[in-house]
């Protein structure tokens, strides 16, 4: 605001003083401004590099991305279809492949649901309340990001394995966690936990509690406040978190590999099956499954871009 006023004033001064032939006390300052502002701007924009430099930088970026991102992606699809489209679909129709796809979808559904609920709860607690240990909780949420996925899987082996803390008890009660769906789900939930909470915390912190307070003072119950005010305000952030959570849940390899036991047709998820098939020289089958995961990645990418745009829109309007 004050800058604008300042600019306006100096422009007026320019008009007043510029034609004067004698140098009055006030005149030099505006004159200096002319000298500085116009010719410099005309010569070169300081933020733009000269043409050749720009070209080199852009070319480098494109070359790098082509080699490390586009090329592998092309290879995946090329290998998947190398024996023709029939072989491709035949590979996907194998019972083992179908089982892996089903298991992956099931695990993703379980961990997304779980993280949806607990992510919202954690983000809610952190952004709307003050309590001791809050910083610790935030650090804890980030833990799965900083721990190697293999370790994450190993933790569950140590807890639920035959020699683990709960192993004997579980065996006695005939409960199967490790090398079964519950173990894979637990490991996946662990590694994907931060996504939803991380997407929501900044959003909810920025929005504050005033709208909720307004809703309550207008007679809304806690549930009404959540579903009519809080949830609509965070829905894009929530979807964003769910999207990333889902992508990771389907693609997780390390943690799942440790707890799955690789039982064919039972505890192999898609990423695990890709590796197994590849090691058995079944390249078409391996790359066919990999191509599904690659497609998932592409869809996620597009959806992410769309959501990011919606998120920006949702945040901007309330500027007053």
């Amino acid at each position, binding site marked *: 605001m004050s800058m604008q006023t300042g600019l306006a004033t100096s422009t007026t001064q320019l008009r007043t003083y510029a034609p004067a032939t004698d140098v009055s006390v006030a005149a030099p300052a505006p004159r200096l401004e002319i000298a500085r502002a116009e010719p410099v701007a005309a010569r070169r924009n300081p933020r733009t590099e000269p043409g050749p430099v720009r070209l080199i930088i852009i070319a480098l970026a494109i070359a790098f991305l082509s080699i490390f991102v586009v090329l592998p992606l092309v290879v995946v699809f090329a290998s998947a279809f190398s024996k023709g489209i029939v072989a491709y679909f035949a590979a996907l129709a194998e019972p083992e492949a179908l089982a892996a796809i089903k298991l992956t979808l099931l695990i993703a559904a379980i961990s997304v649901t779980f993280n949806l609920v607990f992510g919202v709860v954690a983000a809610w607690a952190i952004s709307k309340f003050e309590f001791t240990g809050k910083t610790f909780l935030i650090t804890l949420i980030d833990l799965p990001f900083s721990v190697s996925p293999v370790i994450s899987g190993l933790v569950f082996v140590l807890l639920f394995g035959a020699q683990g803390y709960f192993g004997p008890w579980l065996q006695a009660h005939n409960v199967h966690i490790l090398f079964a769906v519950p173990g894979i789900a637990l490991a996946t939930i662990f590694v994907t936990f931060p996504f939803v909470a991380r997407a929501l915390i900044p959003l909810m912190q920025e929005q504050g509690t*005033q*709208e909720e*307070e*307004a*809703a*309550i*003072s*207008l*007679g*809304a*119950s806690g549930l*009404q406040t959540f579903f*009519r*005010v809080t949830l*609509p*305000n965070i829905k894009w952030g929530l979807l964003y978190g769910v999207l990333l959570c889902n992508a990771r849940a389907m693609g997780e390899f390390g943690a799942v590999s440790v707890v799955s036991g690789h039982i064919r047709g039972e505890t192999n998820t898609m990423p695990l099956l890709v590796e197994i098939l590849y090691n058995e020289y079944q390249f078409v089958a391996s790359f066919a499954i990999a191509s599904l995961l690659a497609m998932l990645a592409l869809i996620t990418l597009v959806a992410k871009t769309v959501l990011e745009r919606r998120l920006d829109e*949702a945040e*901007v*309007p*309330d500027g*007053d």
Partner: protein
Amino acid sequence: MAIEVTNIVKKFGSFAALDNVDLKVADGELLALLGPSGSGKTTLLRIIAGLDWPDSGEVAIDGENALSRGASERQVGFVFQHYALFRHMTVFENVAFGLRVQPRAIRKDEATIRARVKNLLDLVQLDWLANRYPSQLSGGQRQRIALARALAIEPRILLLDEPFGALDAKVRKELRQWLRSLHNEIHVTSIFVTHDQEEALEVANRVVVMDKGRIEQIGSPGEVYDNPATAFVHGFIGESIVLPVDVAGDAVQLDGRPLNIPALGAASGAAKLFVRRHDMAVGPAGTGALEGAIRHVRSFGPIQRAEVALAGTEGKTVIEIDAPRDRELQAGEIVSLQPRRYRIFAAQG
């Protein structure tokens, strides 16, 4: 509905936001809570609304204990400083919110809700904005929508937290008068919080002046302006000339020189003399309690504002006085000053 607040104490850690506050608000009043930031006025308002809870004390709305009910059951209209409009709802849906969340048993049918929202939007003169979103409104419009939304639940009392705080000066002035006339129209007991004395004096029937979690004075705008109960109120409301004086019996001294004015019952010892700028009568040298040289005169409207360096203080004490323009004052002139009305309060600490 009448509001009665008794012995409210609220601490945030070791900081006492409210320190034994008592307040009675009569039915249909328009009351201002006035004080500097940190005086506890917003906390008091939030406690009445049920958005905060006191550590001890009682709040009664219309004779019944309000603390036994949550904010959603108190039927209190609350207007937030930053409006807190629901950003994902249209103006219409914002105003309708309070009606739509009512328990099914007493919820009105859609046609009644629509009619009521329309009435409220007419009342705040913004019916043409019904389908806009809050982000498309100006600050003043948002404020009026927030008010309409609060009125939709037919509140027993209306609470406004710095209602004009985030608006620019001109809109503020318009909304002030508008709020006054709206209150005359609907007569709901209202309390608004402000740090702007002009706003409080202009809009409210009664003003409650607060400082450091305590109520300093309650009175009509005239009373708090003309008869401030404490040094804080005198200094906070209206422009005052403050001079450090010594009181001995009924005599008042400034820098060791006697001032020819009675002490008005102030206790002996160090004290402060408060005079309104326009309550300082200017006369020829040698006729008043104080004397000084005029250093600078600015004339605007009906008054001339003069800077006077008081004699006997080596020109260190400079005060500003407002004089009528019946006789133009000149810089350099020696004049005498006689307080027409003044208050003396014992100096604290």
